[in-house]
């Protein structure tokens, strides 16, 4: 039988070390909502979401109360809307209408974010994809809970540089349309390479076409728990360090597995995957950067950071894999700047730069995440940064992403406040040398040689 010290250990993780389940995300296929009439599509989408997700929030709260573990977010991901709206949407404004109906459905069922205003264009863009991409700025400005993502590359297809170029412009436009709120729209927009079909985390979640009609994915968290465990093995060698991370990751993931199973049983919706990510929040003690410091770095960004992050990411997976029957999604340590107090401190102390963050994304998921950059950064420069990050994903056969916020009217060093889980961030400097001629070439970067495995 369970003993008192084990019970107290678990409760200490929850009460003092911010152990929580970050999200239960219900993936819903909208393929059966397709119609050539826009109003019919809107009606179908609203009905499908509000019916399928009717009990999501209530069941989440029930599980939370019974097991005593906080479930921070209940969310929804849907089929990439460019696939659903293709037959009905003639203009970008038609897509904005679909975004509005998604927002309305999200509010009705009480979820805080809904992901899937997305297009998958890793090899090329259809007319429908282009219309959706042009609709993103307005869609994110007029809705509150809708999140958008665009997959512009993959290891198998290479990188669609036309889409990369366009996304640089779209990000700028999104920033401009939401400038009253520190360009908040960009915090709801992710550009991907190798985007997973079953990611439960926002803003990049969508319900891939390879998934079933509805599915439950769970994202776990718990950087604070790992940090506390590591504080007990200071000065020990790497073997002890790695074992400690692995054991802790196992425990954290088991909680996610329990919540996922229960949610699936109660909602009568199949369980998909557990995403083994260490997701930080701006709360003190809920930081991935603090784990890196505990491993032995004065600040995140110091030499050794990439190695420390690589081992952290790997041990979290090794511990987590055994704890869950299915793992997937992004599964890795997140390093968003604005959502992690330790990262914010590192930037302010001058320890962490955009270039070091880029290096760190080679060894962990997910990418350049929640980074505020000067509002006068050009679209071409943003496209160049995206292209770099996509190349890292393409060549390393991993997911990479870019979520940059060019904050209109703000310059290097100024603070930007996004609020809530999105946190706040200092504006970081960007390399000012031009990449216009590179970005403007047009066409595709071919898939790397090691993708030809057949």
């Amino acid at each position, binding site marked *: 039988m*369970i003993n*008192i010290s084990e019970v107290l250990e*678990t*409760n200490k993780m929850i009460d003092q070390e911010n152990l929580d389940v970050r999200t239960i995300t219900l993936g819903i296929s909208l393929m059966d909502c397709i119609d050539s009439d826009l109003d019919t599509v809107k009606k179908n989408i609203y009905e499908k979401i509000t019916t399928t997700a009717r009990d999501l929030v209530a069941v989440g709260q029930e599980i939370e109360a019974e097991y*005593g573990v906080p479930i921070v977010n209940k969310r929804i991901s849907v089929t990439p809307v460019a696939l659903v709206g293709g037959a009905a949407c003639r203009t970008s404004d038609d897509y904005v209408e679909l975004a509005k109906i998604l927002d309305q459905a999200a509010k009705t069922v009480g979820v805080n974010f809904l992901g899937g205003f997305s297009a998958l264009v890793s090899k090329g863009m259809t007319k429908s994809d282009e219309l959706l991409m042009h609709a993103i700025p307005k869609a994110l400005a007029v809705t509150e809970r809708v999140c958008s993502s665009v997959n512009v590359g993959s290891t198998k297809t290479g990188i669609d540089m036309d889409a990369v170029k366009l996304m640089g412009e779209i990000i700028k436009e999104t920033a401009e349309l939401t400038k009253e709120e520190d360009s908040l729209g960009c915090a709801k927009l992710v550009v991907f390479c190798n985007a997973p079909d079953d990611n439960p985390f926002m803003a990049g979640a969508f319900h891939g076409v390879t998934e079933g009609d509805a599915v439950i994915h769970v994202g776990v968290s718990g950087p604070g728990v790992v940090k506390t465990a590591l504080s007990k093995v200071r000065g020990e060698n790497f073997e002890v360090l790695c074992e400690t991370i692995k054991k802790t990751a196992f425990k954290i993931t088991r*909680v996610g597995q329990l919540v996922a199973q229960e949610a699936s049983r109660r909602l009568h919706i199949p369980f998909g995957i557990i995403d083994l990510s260490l997701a930080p929040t701006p709360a003190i003690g809920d930081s991935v950067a603090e784990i890196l410091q505990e491993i032995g770095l004065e600040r995140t960004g110091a030499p050794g950071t990439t190695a420390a992050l690589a081992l952290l990411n790997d041990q979290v997976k090794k511990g987590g894999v055994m704890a869950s029957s299915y793992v997937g999604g992004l599964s890795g340590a997140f390093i968003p700047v604005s959502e992690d107090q330790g990262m914010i401190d590192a930037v302010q102390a001058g320890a962490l730069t955009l270039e070091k963050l880029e290096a760190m994304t080679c060894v962990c998921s997910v990418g350049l995440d929640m980074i505020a950059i000067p509002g006068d950064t050009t679209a071409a420069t943003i496209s160049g940064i995206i292209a770099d990050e996509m190349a890292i994903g393409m060549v390393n056969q991993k997911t990479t992403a870019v979520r940059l916020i060019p904050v209109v009217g703000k310059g290097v060093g100024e603070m930007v406040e996004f609020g809530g889980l999105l946190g706040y961030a200092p504006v970081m400097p960007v390399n000012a040398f031009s990449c216009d001629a590179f970005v403007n070439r047009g066409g595709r970067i071919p898939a790397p040689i090691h993708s030809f495995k057949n």
Partner: protein
Amino acid sequence: MKKLIITVVGHDKVGIIAKVCTYLAENGVNILDISQTIVDGYFNMMMVVDAGRTADVTKLSKELGSIGEEIGVVIHCQHEDIFNMMHRV
């Protein structure tokens, strides 16, 4: 049988167990096991209880929480599975 784990953590004082047990008795919850320990001057108690098949765990948990607030300790009431999952392979 729905097995729940009730934990009480806080400064030791007279009547903590009495108060919790009275509430449990009034609500038809059977106590299977009690263990307690003092860590760093803090009173730590764990009870394993059987709340029957139909118990409303959310309600029990909420009411025990308020009793805790009344007497100045923290009381949690959780389904045992969270501990089994985390500590048993």
